[in-house]
């Protein structure tokens, strides 16, 4: 205690107290902050379209209109197809939480069965891209290298070299593709959600989509490795520069301070 009170007036005391206070506040917040756990129950369904319509009236109609005709708050859904529904609802983008420049990915609140019902209902409103089957999007066996070339030609402008995402104008952004399932990547290419252009089969055949998915999985998927160590977000020179300054030069300056502090001269009493 004596030691502590002797250092109370140390020039760095205020900094230490501030750091401790920040750490305590942050820790307490992390410990006690409420975590939302809203989950719709699964229900048995009879007719998918019938059930989907019910779900639609509750969760979607306020913005997209009672018959999918759209309103000032949401676009019409006639002809968007089941693939669009599966992507938007399956990645948690829909139902939207609040209007903004872009609807972000968030926790999925519908079960896959409910999403299928919603998709069936929307598909019944007008023909559009349908949810792909597994043999359409499964990247197993596809040519990864060709996928890389296609990715760099069509996708990197917005999604970055390895699909880490990037900024668009006015606060919009292209999302990070890490952890996005092959089905959802396929659907995104097929339907072109939000700011993304669509790549229908006429411009990008199924085989090429598979190759792109295979490439994303290879460089940014669960099994992707980073041979050089920490990949620092995969964001390129900016994050490397930040890391170099803080952990490279920072550590070296700390070492310099340490060396200078351990000098041959007699210590001041």
């Amino acid at each position: 205690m004596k030691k502590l009170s002797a250092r109370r007036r140390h020039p760095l005391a205020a900094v230490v107290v501030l750091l401790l206070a920040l750490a305590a506040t942050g820790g307490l917040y992390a410990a006690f902050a409420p975590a939302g756990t809203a989950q719709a129950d699964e229900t048995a369904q009879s007719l998918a379209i019938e059930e989907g319509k019910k779900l639609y009236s509750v969760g979607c109609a306020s913005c997209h209109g009672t018959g999918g005709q759209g309103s000032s708050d949401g676009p019409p859904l006639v002809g968007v197809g089941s693939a669009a529904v599966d992507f938007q609802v399956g990645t948690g983008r829909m139902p939207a939480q609040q209007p903004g420049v872009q609807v972000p990915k968030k926790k999925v609140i519908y079960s896959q069965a409910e999403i299928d019902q919603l998709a069936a209902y929307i598909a019944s409103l007008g023909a559009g891209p349908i949810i792909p089957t597994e043999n359409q999007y499964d990247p197993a066996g596809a040519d990864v290298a060709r996928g890389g070339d296609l990715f760099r030609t069509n996708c990197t402008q917005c999604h970055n070299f390895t699909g880490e995402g990037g900024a668009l104008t006015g606060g919009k952004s292209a999302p990070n593709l890490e952890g996005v399932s092959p089905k959802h990547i396929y659907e995104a290419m097929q339907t072109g959600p939000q700011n993304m252009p669509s790549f229908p089969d006429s411009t990008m055949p199924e085989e090429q989509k598979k190759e792109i998915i295979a490439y994303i999985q290879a460089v940014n998927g669960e099994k992707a490795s980073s041979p050089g160590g920490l990949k620092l977000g995969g964001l390129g020179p900016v994050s490397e520069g930040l890391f170099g300054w803080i952990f490279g030069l920072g550590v070296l300056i700390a070492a310099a301070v340490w060396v200078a502090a351990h000098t041959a001269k007699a210590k001041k009493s």
Partner: protein
Amino acid sequence: MSTSTASDDKNRRVPAGERVADWADGRLGIYSLAKANMRKIFPDHWSFMLGEIALYSFIIIILTGVYLTLFFHPSMNEVVYHGSYVPLQGVRMSEAYASTVDISFDVRGGLLIRQIHHWAALIFLAAMLVHMMRVFFTGAFRKPREVNWLFGFLLFVLGMFTGFTGYSLPDDLLSGTGVRFMQGAILSVPVVGTYLSMFLFGGEFPGGDFVARFYSVHILLLPGIMLGLVVAHLILVFYHKHTQFAGPGRTNRNVVGMPLLPVYMAKAGGFFFLVFGLITIVSAIATINPIWALGPYRPDQVSTGAQPDWYMGFSEGLIRVMPGWEINFLGHTLVLGVFIPLVIFPLVLVAIAVYPFIEGWVTRDNREHHILDRPRNAPTRTAFGVAWLTWYFILLVGGGNDLWATHFHLSINAITWFVRVFFFVGPVIAFVVTKRICLGLQRRDAEKVLHGRESGVIKRLPHGEFIEVHTPLDQADLHRLTAHDQHKPADLGPAVDENGVRRNVGPAEKLRVKLSKGYYGEGSQIPKPTAEEYNEIAAAHGHGHEEITSGKH
């Protein structure tokens, strides 16, 4: 050794080491060299080791670079990749790119050496900048060290371009975009731009030459010049002797510290290995420039997040925030949106480089300075330095505007406009604020000298008054806080000479006097306490509450 010639004194067995030293001395004169330099004194302060970090990382870069040249093919011949990195197998690429991927995956230790080379380069440039700022803020650039300041500055600029030509060599999609950026800037030069571009690339961009050309520049021309400058830089450090901070026993005519041998040989040698070790650890932990993930360069492809390494980041900021202006005149286009940033780019660097000469001109200070300033005691200089750093940092923000946008959920347009405004406003605000802070710190120093340090002990006097006990500073601290010079502002002098004739004062001199008033005039420095003030207050303390605090002594 046993076969060497007999020594002069045949009766005495001379140790082998001595005989080798004698041999060398007879040919190289090492004894007088050692005698003159072994006891050379260097002062001790951690900030004097920043330049060492730069020097050692430069050595590390050279060592690792030599290893990389053994495996790198500086050629743009097209090949099909068949190495061990699966996502590139079968892709067409230049030999330069293929050999870099091979270095990363198929050469023993190649990836680690590549990463050490690149991390050391980032740290080299960062250490040079920090070292330069140490020199700047402590006024170590003053006479007689102006030339060495320029040598250091040149090293920083050459380091930037060595880095640029280096990271462009692998011919990957990221660096290729950077080279395209550079080519665009060259094209924007009026009249000669297209010719320059054709000359540099041996035809249309990218052509088949630039990797080989950059390679010569990167491994021979620029490092050669830099090595020469580093040697000159160090010779001048020896010749001028190292600066030191004010302290007891330290004057402008001595250096207080420890001898080169053995203390600094051991410390510097040890520190080299520390730097090498720590950079290696960083390189083993974190990846840098994963060119295999970027893909080979093709002019028809581009990625978002295409930025240069940090030391070129401010040029990226200039180009990103510049409005896309252009002038069309008689079928010729002047691309101001690119040309103006190209002109400002060197100006940003020159602004800090010429400052010592501007200060020298304003102050007309021709004395030698070996005692460093504390930054607060040179408020105008410190404020200028912080303003420049602010300017530089704002441009870096502009260069990374997309990542600021995605990571802080901001609009990239808003960030761009922020940078446009603060490019002009930021340095001014930084200048004013820094100057005020410096003056505040000077006031605090004066207060500390006269009244001592706040002890945190509150005493209650017999009549009920509470006072805080101040402990007087010791002699060394008093000296440290009052050792600096305080200059008087220059004066234009009388308007007329002794004969009543109007004196002719040129506009340059008028400007100089005005600036000098800004430096040292009213409100630009806090008069440091004089001995009389100190004695007076010390005496007053004797009559006042000194008796209460006397228990502390």
